[in-house]
C-alpha cells in the first residue's frame, strides 16, 4: 500500500512539470517565429519595440503559464498530504488488525471446551509476540499460580512491559512482554502506548479465561460427584424403574436382577409408594449377600421420582455387634468375677454392685443401687479417705490399691483393697467411679497370724535358748567347779551357736516388723560420727583377731542426721561385721563425709568382692555369697536386707560398688539433719 500512494504523487508531479515544459516550448517557438518569420530585429529590440497588442498577448500567455504552474504545484502538494494521511491510516489499521488477531486468537482458545487451562495459557503466550511492533524480537511469559508459560525465545531483559492478571479482584498472575534487543525510545520505553493498552487488555482477557476455566472445572468435578460416591445412589421413577444409577450402584442392580430402565425388585415397591404418598424420607435396610446397606429413600417432591441414597453399613454393624458382645461379656464378667466391683455416679450414688460385692457385704444389688456409697456403707474411719479417692477419680486421677473397711449387713467389717478408675461416657465425659476390689480380710487375718506366730515362736525359742546359753555360761564361768580344757572348748561352741541362733531370731523378728510395717523408729538428732566410733571400738578386736587393719577416716565431726541411733548402729555394725567376715587379708576402712546435703558413711574392704549378678541380689533376703570361705562364716542372711530397709526408712540409700576378688564398698547415704526442722520429727 505504501508504494501505491508514492506512485500517485509522482504522476501529479510529472503532470505539473509537463505543463511548465509545454509553456516554455511555446515561448521558444513563439520567439523563433518572431525572429525568423517576422524578422524584426533582435529579441530585446522586439520586446521594447513590440506593439502593445503583442505585449498584452505575451503577458496573457505568461500569466496563463504561471497560473498553470502554480495550480499544478498546489494540486501536487494537496495530493501528497492526502496520500500521507492515507498511508498512516492504513498503518494504524494494520496495527489494530494485529492486536485484534492476537486478542481474538486468545479468546478463540477458550471456545474449545475440552482444552485444560494450562493448554490455553501455553498457546496464548505464543500469540502475543506478533501483535507487538517488532514481533521478531518480542518474547512473552505468563505466570499463573506458580505455573509458568513462556515463548521459546523468552529472556527477561530491561525492555519489559508487564501487567497483572486479576481474577475476582485478586492478583493470580502476571503477563510480561520483553524486547530481546534495544529499540528507539517511544511512548513507554521502547514500547508504544497502544502496546500498553494491549498488554492490559490481554491480561484482563487471561483473567477472564482463568475464571471461566476454573468454574468449568468445578462444574465438571461436581458432575463426576455421584459417580465417584463409594455409596450407591439411584433415582427411580414412580413405577420403580431405574432412571439413574451411579457406578457403585450398578452391581446392586445386577444382584437385584434389574438394570437402567428396568423396575426394582418387588420389595421396593411398597417403600416407594409409602414415601411418595407421605412425601417424607424413609430409611430401610437391605441385605445383599454378605453386605448390609441402609437406604434413605427420598422422594423428589413435584418431580415424581425418588432418590435412593445407600450406605454400606456392614462394617458398622459388625462393630456394633462386637461392641454389644464385648459389653455382654463385660457385664457377665462383672457379674461373676470373684472380686467385688462397685460403681458410683458423679453424685456418689451406687450404680454398679456385683454379686461378689453382695456376697461380702450381705447387701443385695437392689438394696444398694441408688444409695450414697460412702455415707451408707463405709466405716466412719474410712469415710474421709474414700471420699478423697472418689473425688480424685472424678477428676480423672486413678488410685491403686487403697484399703478400706466396708460395713456388712450383719454389722461386721470387711477389709477390701480397691483400685478406683474413672468412668467416662463415649465422648469422654466423666460419669462416675468404678472400683474393682479384693476382699483381703482373709489375707489380713493370715498376715496377723503370721506376725503373731513369728512373735510367739521367737519368744518360745528364746526361752530354751536362754537356758542353754545361761547354763553353758554358768559352767564356763566356773560357778560349778573347775572344767577341763576340752570341756571349755566344747561349751564355748555351744555358747557361740546359741548366740548365732539368737541373732537369727532377732533378724527374723526385724524382718517381720519391716514387712508388717511395725518397725518403729525413734527419730531424733543423731551424730553419725559417734555411732561410727562405737562400732569401730566394738569391731576392733574382731578385726585384730583376724589380722586385719580397721581404719577410720573421719575428717569432720559431728555429722548429724535425723534418725534412730540404735537402728543406725545396727546397720553400721552389720556392714562392718560383714566386711570383716568376708575379708581374709588386708584392711577394712570406714569413712564419714558430708556431700552437699547428704551424709555419707562408706565401709570399704579388700575382701572377696562380688560378681555383678550377686550385686543385684545382695540386698534380698537370705542372700549368702556362693563361696566356700563364706560358707564357713556365720550369719542369717537377713542383715543386708534389714540394713537397706532401715536406711530407706530414714529416706536414705545404700550404694554398692564391688569387684570380684578386689573388695566391696557399701556407702550409706542419709539426708543431713536440718536444724530448723527440729528433733523428734
Amino acid at each position, binding site marked *: 500500500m505504501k508504494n501505491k500512494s508514492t506512485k500517485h504523487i509522482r504522476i501529479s508531479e510529472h503532470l505539473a512539470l509537463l505543463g511548465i515544459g509545454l509553456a516554455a516550448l511555446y515561448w521558444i517557438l513563439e520567439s523563433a517565429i518572431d525572429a525568423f518569420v517576422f524578422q524584426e530585429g533582435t529579441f530585446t529590440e522586439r520586446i521594447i519595440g513590440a506593439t502593445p497588442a503583442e505585449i498584452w498577448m505575451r503577458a496573457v500567455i505568461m500569466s496563463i503559464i504561471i497560473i498553470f504552474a502554480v495550480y499544478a504545484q498546489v494540486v501536487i502538494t494537496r495530493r501528497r498530504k492526502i496520500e500521507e494521511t492515507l498511508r498512516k491510516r492504513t498503518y494504524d489499521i494494520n496495527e489494530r488488525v494485529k492486536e485484534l488477531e492476537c486478542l481474538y486468537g486468545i479468546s478463540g482458545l477458550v471456545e474449545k471446551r475440552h482444552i485444560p487451562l494450562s493448554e490455553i495459557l501455553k498457546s496464548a503466550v505464543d500469540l502475543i509476540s506478533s501483535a507487538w511492533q517488532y514481533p521478531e524480537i518480542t518474547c512473552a511469559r505468563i505466570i499463573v499460580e506458580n505455573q509458568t508459560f513462556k515463548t521459546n525465545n523468552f529472556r527477561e531483559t530491561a525492555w519489559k512491559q508487564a501487567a497483572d492478571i486479576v481474577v475476582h479482584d485478586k492478583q493470580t498472575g502476571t503477563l510480561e512482554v520483553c524486547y530481546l534487543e534495544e529499540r528507539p525510545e517511544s511512548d513507554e520505553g521502547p514500547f508504544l502506548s497502544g502496546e500498553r493498552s494491549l498488554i492490559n487488555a490481554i491480561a484482563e482477557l487471561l483473567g477472564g479465561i482463568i475464571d471461566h476455566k476454573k468454574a468449568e472445572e468445578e462444574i465438571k468435578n461436581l458432575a463426576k460427584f455421584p459417580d465417584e460416591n463409594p455409596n450407591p445412589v439411584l433415582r427411580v421413577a414412580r413405577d420403580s424403574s431405574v432412571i439413574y444409577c451411579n457406578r457403585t450402584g450398578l452391581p446392586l442392580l445386577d444382584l437385584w436382577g434389574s438394570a437402567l430402565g428396568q423396575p426394582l425388585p418387588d420389595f421396593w415397591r411398597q417403600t416407594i409408594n409409602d414415601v411418595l404418598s407421605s412425601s417424607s424420607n424413609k430409611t430401610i435396610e437391605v441385605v445383599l449377600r454378605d453386605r448390609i446397606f441402609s437406604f434413605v429413600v427420598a422422594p423428589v417432591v413435584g418431580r415424581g421420582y425418588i432418590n435412593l441414597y445407600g450406605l454400606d453399613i456392614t462394617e458398622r454393624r459388625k462393630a456394633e455387634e462386637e461392641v454389644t458382645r464385648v459389653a455382654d461379656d463385660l457385664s457377665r464378667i462383672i457379674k461373676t468375677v470373684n472380686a467385688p466391683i462397685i460403681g458410683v455416679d458423679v453424685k456418689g450414688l451406687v450404680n454398679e454392685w456385683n454379686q461378689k460385692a453382695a456376697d461380702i457385704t450381705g447387701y443385695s444389688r437392689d438394696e444398694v443401687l441408688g444409695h450414697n456409697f460412702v455415707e451408707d456403707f463405709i466405716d466412719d474411719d474410712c469415710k474421709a479417705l474414700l471420699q478423697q479417692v472418689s473425688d480424685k477419680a472424678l477428676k480423672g486421677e486413678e488410685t491403686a490399691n487403697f484399703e478400706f473397711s466396708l460395713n456388712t449387713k450383719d454389722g461386721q467389717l470387711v477389709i477390701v483393697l480397691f483400685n478406683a478408675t474413672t468412668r467416662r461416657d463415649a465422648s469422654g465425659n466423666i460419669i462416675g467411679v468404678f472400683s474393682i476390689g479384693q476382699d483381703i480380710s482373709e489375707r489380713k487375718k493370715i498376715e496377723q497370724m503370721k506376725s503373731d506366730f513369728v512373735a510367739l515362736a521367737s519368744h518360745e525359742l*528364746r526361752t530354751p*535358748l536362754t537356758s542353754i*546359753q545361761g547354763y553353758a555360761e554358768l559352767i564356763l564361768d566356773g560357778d560349778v567347779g573347775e572344767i577341763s580344757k576340752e570341756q571349755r572348748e566344747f561349751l564355748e561352741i555351744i555358747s557361740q551357736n546359741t548366740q548365732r541362733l*539368737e541373732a537369727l531370731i532377732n533378724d527374723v523378728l526385724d524382718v517381720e516388723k519391716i514387712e508388717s510395717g511395725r518397725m518403729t523408729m525413734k527419730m531424733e538428732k543423731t551424730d553419725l560420727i559417734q555411732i561410727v566410733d562405737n562400732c569401730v571400738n566394738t569391731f576392733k578386736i574382731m578385726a585384730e583377731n583376724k589380722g586385719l587393719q580397721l581404719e577410720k577416716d573421719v575428717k569432720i565431726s559431728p555429722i548429724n542426721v535425723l534418725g534412730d541411733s540404735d537402728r543406725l548402729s545396727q546397720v553400721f555394725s552389720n556392714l562392718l561385721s560383714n566386711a570383716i567376715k568376708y575379708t581374709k587379708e588386708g584392711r577394712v576402712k570406714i569413712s564419714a563425709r558430708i556431700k552437699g546435703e547428704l551424709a555419707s558413711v562408706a565401709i570399704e574392704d579388700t575382701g572377696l568382692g562380688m560378681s555383678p549378678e550377686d550385686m543385684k541380689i545382695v540386698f534380698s533376703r537370705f542372700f549368702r555369697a556362693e563361696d566356700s570361705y563364706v560358707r564357713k562364716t556365720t550369719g542369717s542372711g537377713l542383715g543386708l536386707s534389714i540394713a537397706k530397709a532401715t536406711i530407706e526408712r530414714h529416706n536414705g540409700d545404700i550404694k554398692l560398688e564391688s569387684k570380684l576378688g578386689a573388695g566391696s564398698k557399701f556407702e550409706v547415704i542419709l539426708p543431713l539433719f536440718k536444724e530448723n526442722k527440729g528433733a523428734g520429727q
Partner: protein
Amino acid sequence: MTRKIILAEDEPQIARLIEFKLKKEGYEVTWKENGEEALKAIRADKPDLILLDVMMPVMDGYEVLRRLKEDENLKSIPVVMLTARAQEKDVVKGIDMGAEDYITKPFHPAELLARVKRILGKSR
C-alpha cells in the same frame, strides 16, 4: 546383811539358773512362779530388789510393776525387768513405769549378776 531378792519367773529352769548365780554370790533369793504370788511375797518380805519377768501367767510383769509403784511402802524397791528381747516398746514401757533396769533374754548370767550388784551397791 544378806540382800534379799524376789524373783518372779514362770520358767523353772531359768529361775533356777538365776537363783543359783545370785545365791552363789551370797544373795538371798525367793523365787515365785507368777506375778500374783510374787506380789504377795514382796508385800510380806519387802526385798531389796525385785527381778520381774514380763511374760507370766495369772499376772504379768507390768501389772505387778504398776501395783508396786502405786504402793507407797513398795515403790522405792528397785525393779529389774526380764524381757524377751526385741520389743523396744516393751523396754520403754517398763522404764517409763518406773523399772530401774531391764535385761533381755537370752542373757549372760555374769551380766545379770553385774547389773544386780550395781543396783544394790548404789542403794546401799
